[in-house]
């Protein structure tokens, strides 16, 4: 009997994982379809020399070309001649994937604890500045070289790499963690809605960091709002031979670290009592409290962990991409929300979703260079995906209607079909 129950439970769990994957894919497809229509229609309002003439209007944009650039441009156009694996576009895609894994994990951890951390962006901004400043100041005190016993001379570069990178990442995690703990504590002890406080803290983070920058940390040799550069040996090293070149601002080591962190968080959720308590507080706060979980401490702890992950994202943005902190931080934290929502807040799913949004970021650049379509399209697609993931009932309804009543209907059958199959599984 017990075995039977367990096998049913297992099947249900698997079904709901499949359910989530199908809904995420359906949301992606639907968003891409609607985005395509938007691109096509908006082409009628743009001005161009050549375009599709139809009904007296000229449609300037070809959605197929836009999506070709978005999805294949992000990989460096693998179907065209002269393609190499280690190309600049793919490096950008993977660089974004790496950073989005951090911010996606950040949002997912809070989500699983029942908290909506919109503040990953601010935590990333603050953490990044802390990293840059720490590394720049610490590099001044790293000795030129160390002579070990037996006359082995270790050059400063190696020491710098071994000491400064962990130090910088730690500084980012600490600063991000503290900045995440603030809304956690406000939520736990003053009942202040974390959605609003984190959005406000994002705006405040921009104000604080740019004030700090102009007050103390501005690079004296530059007019751009940015910190002094970290020494080259403190940037994330790239792998020789198999890796991407140093000018591509992407390191496989960083991606490996992100993936390891992803697995670590998955393990934390699945195998540790902290993870169990965190998940229970998210699903059933009452039950968790009854089971002896200190709800307030859990709120602060999960927001701190979430903020630390965001801060690590900022650290890697500094140490891998620019080698310094710039005032104009890209919206990695906001995209982290989309990553986590699309991944159903599963740490492993975050990896796949981060790769998709990495493609969006990098492909957005190739849209900008190869077509006249505004790259803001990517932002719209992101919003649409979140919207559709938020309404799984839509796809279940579509599935039920088109599969049982009229399976020959062509419209969006891929989302609908699978959704219905899956609903059947879950009911069984």
């Amino acid at each position: 009997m017990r075995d039977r129950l367990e096998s049913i439970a297992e099947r249900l769990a698997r079904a709901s994982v499949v359910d989530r994957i199908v809904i995420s894919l359906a949301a992606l497809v639907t968003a891409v379809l609607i985005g395509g229509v938007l691109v096509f229609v908006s082409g009628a309002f743009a001005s161009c020399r050549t375009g599709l003439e139809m009904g007296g209007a000229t449609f300037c944009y070809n959605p197929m070309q836009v999506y070709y650039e978005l999805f294949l441009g992000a990989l460096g156009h693998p179907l065209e001649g002269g393609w190499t694996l280690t190309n600049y576009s793919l490096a950008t895609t993977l660089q974004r994937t790496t950073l989005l894994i951090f911010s996606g994990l950040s949002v997912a951890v809070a989500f699983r604890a029942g908290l909506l951390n919109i503040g990953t962006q601010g935590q990333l901004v603050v953490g990044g500045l802390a990293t840059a400043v720490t590394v720049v100041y610490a590099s001044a005190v790293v000795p030129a070289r160390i002579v070990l016993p037996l006359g082995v001379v270790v050059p400063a570069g190696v020491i710098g790499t071994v000491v400064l990178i962990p130090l910088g990442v730690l500084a980012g995690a600490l600063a991000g963690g503290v900045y995440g703990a603030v809304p956690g504590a406000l939520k736990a002890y003053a009942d202040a809605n974390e959605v609003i406080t984190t959005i406000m803290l994002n705006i405040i983070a921009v104000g604080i960091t740019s004030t700090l920058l102009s007050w103390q940390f501005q690079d004296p040799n530059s007019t751009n709002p940015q910190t002094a550069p970290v020494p080259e040996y403190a940037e994330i090293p790239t792998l020789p031979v198999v890796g991407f070149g140093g000018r591509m601002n992407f390191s496989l080591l960083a991606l490996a670290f992100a993936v390891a962190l992803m697995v670590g968080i998955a393990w934390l959720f699945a195998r540790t009592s902290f993870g169990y308590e965190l998940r229970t507080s998210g699903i059933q706060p009452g039950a968790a409290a009854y089971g002896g979980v200190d709800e307030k401490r859990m709120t602060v702890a999960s927001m701190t962990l979430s903020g630390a992950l965001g801060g690590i994202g900022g650290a890697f943005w500094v140490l891998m991409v620019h080698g310094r902190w710039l005032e104009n931080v890209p919206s990695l934290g906001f995209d982290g929300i989309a990553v986590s929502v699309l991944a159903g807040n599963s740490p492993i799913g975050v990896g796949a979703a981060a790769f998709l949004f990495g493609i969006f970021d990098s492909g957005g650049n190739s849209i900008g260079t190869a077509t006249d379509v505004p790259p803001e399209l990517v932002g719209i697609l992101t919003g649409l995906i979140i919207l559709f993931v938020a309404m799984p009932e839509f796809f279940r309804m579509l599935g039920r209607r088109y599969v049982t009543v009229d399976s020959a209907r062509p419209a969006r059958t891929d989302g609908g079909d699978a959704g219905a199959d899956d609903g059947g599984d879950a009911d069984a």
Partner: protein
Amino acid sequence: MAVTRGPTTEVTPMRNAIHRARTSLEQRPLAAAVGGVAVFLLVLWTTPASWQTSTLRFAVPIALAAIGGIFAEKSGVINIGIEGLLIVSAFSAIVVVDWLGDGGATAGLPNLWWGMLIGVLVSVLFALLFAVVCLEFEADQIIAGLAVWLISLGLAPFISRILFDSPNTVNITRFENVTVPVLSEIPLVGYLLFDTEPQVYLMLAGAVAGWYLLSRTTFGRWVVASGENPKALDTAGVDVRKVRYAAVLLSGVFAGLGGAGFGLGTLGTFAGTGDTVINGRGFIAIATYLLANYHPIGALLGSFLFAGLNSMQDVLQAAGYAIPTELIRTIPHMTVIVVLVFVGRTRLPDAAGDHYESGDD
């Protein structure tokens, strides 16, 4: 508040005081009104006129979005997407005015008012989308609201680039002051309330209309019941879904008036980079109505607080204080957090955020 707080929580006495003050104000509306007017006149008498007019103008999007948010949330649908509604209405209003011709009139109506009309219409369309997603497809309201915001955040600069080759729109001629004869001669308040731009009149009228609609009409009672006890409303024979649709669409109307009024009256152009020129005003509006405990007139007064802080940066800079602008600009946002800490979570309507499924269909 169901959970009792430990004795160490320091915000509690302060918060209790605020709660007591708020309830006693609500129970004695006449005293509250007289006291409010007295404080108001005192503030007017002691502060510079330029700060007052700029405060009124910056209050427009916050106050109107807050009043709209009150209707949605009171009916049980938390509309966190009002930030997005402000963005699309401000942007589309300016685009329409530019398209019809700056400074002209079409079909007897000045183009600025066409912009206002279309801005509100676009905002209502987005609110309709949000309502369908939440009410038909049982979406998570918070995430759907975020999605509405993100879509608007991408859509406005996307269209702007197509039309103007830049994420920022062109400049248009803004609304001019409308002066009410005689009344504008009243000392202290005349120049402020009766010699101002149309969107300020709309805000003042909207607050009164919102208050009347919510607390003095059958529809208002339905809205409240739909958020507190939808089952009872259903039993009484009123369609909960229709009430919620109406409330969310109404939030679109108010937010649209706020966004379009702000764009056409105060900004005259729409900057679409970063968080756009709306820059979190919709979220400030949410904090405002929580502070005001869902009272439309209270939300109007609350918006003066945030707008006043916003326009204070100009005053401080004019006075020559060397405070970094980036930091001053965040003062309203910091105040939102302080307000939330001291007010705490206002008691949400019981059924807010929940989908309601009627038994009989």
